[in-house]
């Protein structure tokens, strides 16, 4: 993407307002983290239930289907705030390699959802299964690995500095 376009995004009035407000940026960042807090644990519980490690008293479908709308809500909150944060500092974040890694991980998460859609759609089959099939276990393990990687890459975004040009105080990314 040409740098001018990224800069143009960052210079839009909403983006400037978010970036320059002493309150709005940290509030959006807090909501980004709150969203993670509200649904990150639920992703883990879903995956661990599918692996037969936790909440084994409850049918797999109860846990997976019961948590789904809440995970979607948390993801929507986290993603919306993430996009606003990215937009407000588009030109600053653009060259950041960890942002690119994070975006690639999201692409992998979408691929994961497509590849394993059968597992999640027919999750009631797991209630009757005596042994949880390998495919469902693989889906759960990969989900845990991918989401932990997303959090890790996300935190590393704040530690990268462009070579040569020192980052000035206004550009410090928290």
């Amino acid at each position, binding site marked *: 993407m040409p740098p001018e376009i990224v800069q143009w995004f960052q210079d839009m009035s909403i983006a400037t307002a978010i970036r320059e407000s*002493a309150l709005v*940026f*940290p*509030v959006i*960042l*807090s909501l980004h*983290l*709150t969203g*993670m*807090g*509200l*649904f*990150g*644990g*639920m*992703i*883990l*519980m879903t995956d*661990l239930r599918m692996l037969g490690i*936790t*909440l084994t*008293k*409850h049918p797999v479908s*109860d846990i997976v289907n*019961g*948590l789904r*709308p*809440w995970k979607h809500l948390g993801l929507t909150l986290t993603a919306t705030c993430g996009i606003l944060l990215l937009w407000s500092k588009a030109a600053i974040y653009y060259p950041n390699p960890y942002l690119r890694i994070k975006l690639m991980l999201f692409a992998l998460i979408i691929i994961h959802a497509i590849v394993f859609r059968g597992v999640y759609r027919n999750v009631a089959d797991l209630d009757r299964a005596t042994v949880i099939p390998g495919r469902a276990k693989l889906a759960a393990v990969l989900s845990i690995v991918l989401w*932990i990687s997303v*959090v*890790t890459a996300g*935190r*590393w975004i*704040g*530690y990268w500095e462009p070579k040569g040009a020192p980052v000035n105080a206004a550009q410090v990314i*928290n």
Partner: protein
Amino acid sequence: MALFLAYDVANNPLNTNEWAFPVCEVLHILGFAIGIGTITMVNIRLLGLGLKKESPADLWKGTFPWTLGGLALVLITGPLIFSSDPTMYLRNEGFRFKITMLVLALIYHYTIYRKVALTKTSGGVAVMAGLISLVLWVSVVFGGIFIAFV
């Protein structure tokens, strides 16, 4: 006391090793996602918003070790992060707010909240218990982020 006086933040591995601090932060985030995420599952049930096939008591028992594990991870990495610059944190309004809310949240969670989740409590009390829990834990997260902005 002598040990405390001899402490020099400049020698703290968190400040000398490039990886130590961010690794602690990532574990801190994962810990609270697991801790607060599992607490939220019980909350959703207490508020009557979902997971209705399960009883609050069963959800409390099922998530208990994971909530405890997540909170333990937070309570190990938190003091490590604090040790990187104790004087700054102690002066920081965001940090003071966070710690106050955290202490309240922890006490509340393992006393009143636990009791409500484990006993068959009527709607109003359960909703109240869930709302207080949600507000306390979200406040802790907000306090944590604002450490870097106040």
